[in-house]
């Protein structure tokens, strides 16, 4: 048999799965991202109603007030499916692991000025509880959400938040030679200190939100949009200016993570708002509500972190957030 014949014989009969041909045509093979996320979730003929929620089907578009003609309109700009996601995070963790070991081996945190160490204890370590809450909230978005392009990203986000809660815990352990002094103190602050109660109250209220898309806005857009720039960027820089540059080695994961993650929240907001005026109004209302409430809740922590400049730092971050969301089409 000649080579041409065998090459001809091995011509594919199609280039793609049927759902992807319907969406994108059959001119070229789809990407792995497209294969992995489009139309994977069941949409029809559910056999039984959930015993734990008899008002809804297992997958149900009416668990949010947001309405989409096609729940797959949204695509993750990072094109994360499990493989690309874990490989990306694995590279980041390798750098983080190197940094943490380096800091530990040389006991670099012992050399920090005491005010910096105390600031880390007071401001950064309690954030592990916020990350833990974010883990729960993103898990909820995955469990109640609709469409694999959104739900799979929420799943990855949930695991990221667990990872970051663990990194923050390690900073606490590094401060105390693997004793839990800082972790215990941070928990006590989170539970009792007046400056944290507004935030804890808001996070607990998020836990009982009925609408998963509102939860998305409250957690991943409003809370993260205020908190990450304020504490993992501006506050970290303040620590560096005061001789705490080493801390930046331990928080790089968080600041990189946020820069990356903003891409998908922006895309999500843009697509959802562009779908309809009703969506746009609803999103804008949620943003307004949660940004207002959360800035008030963060204000006492910001003051503790930055002193008298805290409120203006927070306001700048808030303006940046609203401007960014305005660019995605929201009226805020």
């Amino acid at each position, binding site marked *: 048999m000649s080579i041409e014949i065998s090459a001809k014989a091995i011509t594919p*009969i199609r280039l*793609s*799965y049927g759902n992807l041909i319907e969406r994108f045509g059959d001119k070229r093979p789809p990407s792995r991202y497209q*294969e992995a996320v489009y139309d994977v979730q069941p949409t*029809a003929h559910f056999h039984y109603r959930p015993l734990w929620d008899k008002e809804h089907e297992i997958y149900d578009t009416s668990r949010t007030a947001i309405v989409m003609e096609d729940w797959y309109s949204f695509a993750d700009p990072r094109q994360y499916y499990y493989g690309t996601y874990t490989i990306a995070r694995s590279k980041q963790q390798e750098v983080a692991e190197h940094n943490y070991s380096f800091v530990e081996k040389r006991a670099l945190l012992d050399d920090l000025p005491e005010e910096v160490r105390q600031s880390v204890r007071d401001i950064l370590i309690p954030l592990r509880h916020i990350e833990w809450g974010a883990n729960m909230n993103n898990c909820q978005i995955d469990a109640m959400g609709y469409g694999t392009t959104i739900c799979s990203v929420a799943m990855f986000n949930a695991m990221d938040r667990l*990872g970051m809660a663990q990194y923050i815990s390690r900073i606490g352990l590094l401060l105390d030679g*693997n004793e839990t002094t800082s972790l215990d103190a941070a928990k006590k602050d989170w539970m009792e200190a007046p400056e944290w109660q507004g935030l804890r109250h808001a996070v*607990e209220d998020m836990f009982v939100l009925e609408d998963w898309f509102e939860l998305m806005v409250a957690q991943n857009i409003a809370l993260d949009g205020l908190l990450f720039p304020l504490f993992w960027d501006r506050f970290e820089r303040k620590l560096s200016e005061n001789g705490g540059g080493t801390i930046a080695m331990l928080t790089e994961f968080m600041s990189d993570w946020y820069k990356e993650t903003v891409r998908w929240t922006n895309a999500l907001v843009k697509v959802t708002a562009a779908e309809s005026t009703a969506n746009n109004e609803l999103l804008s209302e949620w943003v307004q509500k949660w940004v207002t409430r959360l800035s008030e809740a963060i204000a006492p922590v910001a003051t503790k972190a930055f002193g008298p400049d805290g409120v203006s730092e927070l306001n700048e971050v808030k303006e940046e957030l609203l401007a960014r969301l305005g660019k995605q089409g929201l009226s805020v």
Partner: protein
Amino acid sequence: MAAKKLNLRKRYELLTRGMGWETSYQKMDDVFPYDTFEGIKITDWDKWEDPFRLTMDAYWKFQAEKEKKLYAIIDSFAQNNGQTNLADASYLSAIKLFITGVTPLEYAAHHGFSHLGRHFRGEGARIACQMQAIDELRHAQTQIHTISHYNKHFTGLHNPFHQSDRVWYLSVPKSFGEDALTAGPFEFITSISFAFEYVLTNLLFVPFMSGAAYNGDMATTTFGFSAQSDESRHMTLGLEIIKFMVEQHEDNLPIIQRWIDKHFWRAYRVLALVSAMQDYMLTNTPMSWKEAWDIYFVENGGALFEDLGRYGLKMPKHHELATAEAEHLSHQVWSVFCALGNATGFHTFEPSEEKMAWLSEKYPNTFDKYYRPRFELWKRQKAEGTFEYLASLPQLCQVCQIPMIFTEVETDPMQISFRNTKYKGDNYHFCSDGCKDVFENEPEKYVQAWLPVHQIFQGNCGGATVPEVLEWYKFQPEDGGDYFDSLDYRRWQEWHGNAEAAKTGS
């Protein structure tokens, strides 16, 4: 200061406990509204012990390593047209059933575990469930990616998710997954992690994947074994959760036993499809269904339940029947697919002479006596051109949704096993005592079942004729029917230089 050395156990504890808190602005029962209604009593979630202690950094590291290896093999398989090295193209029927039947179940498991990952009250249990949730997403996605190359070269693989929601035999796995998803969190985890993963999943993944290796299917073997490394964690979670629940409160035992009985039987019925994959669809079979059942259920399952005996747990109800059925199951399932082969999304075929000899050897009590004659008859009829597919739609069991094909194996293996019960004036039919029991414990649930055959009769599936229904399934004309009349067969012959067979069919 000199840092205290942390061992794995202690380090894991510090990185997974104490981040959660007792809420006070909202009631804990409102934050975790779903973990009490089933009646399972948990007095101390802190007693939860994690068998594996993977922090996220380790998880990312190891999983990325696995993914890199897997995708390297998938790429090289595609670049080298690895599909031409299979034992035979008829083997693809197993892969077609796999992606339409099993892959959607992986996604269902993902969904269920993310629900538990949010809604179990205990921190450790939540993390374990989240890891499983993301793993299950992995399995669905790696299966789609691996089988993508086959989809380019073979029929019947092009619309797995659309079909999973509609096709008559795919409601078997779909309804099982949804049965678990619609249950409370403790029942879900008992179903998926224990009954399915621990007790039965080895039957799917170990001999079947080893079978894929045996038939030259490097791609499937690779994703299968790669998934199994996660599966080992999942199985262990299944065992831990059972022990945890029974240790927490004595009232939990009867509830758990009832769930084990139910989900063992539900999951076992789903695996009836796997028995046909194992014995008939694999061209060369390293291990028969019966052999696999003996090792992985009778022996290993026996060891497991002996160990659980100290908690008062017993072997699942009707396990004796499942073992008695092991000599019949694959033959009965493959027969019904052959008889309805014009309405399947994969090719059916009578076993070759060689395969029949193998079946006789592996099933000395049953194959020659009960099943060989029907395959020989169909083979003859096909040669003479008199073969006809079944003209009528089969009646389905209300619970497992498999056609009524199972027989009274313990008394009269030629007698179809029929059971029925009346509920609120309507009559419901079952394939077995196992399915009837499941129904009678929760009739309100199972009367809701979306039974594909009923739905066809009610006109909800595209039309009243077979071609209309198949079109609604998005089956293409070349997807079903006899393998030797198929496009897959003709292309396979072309690839292997057999021009005559390629033109004319067999």
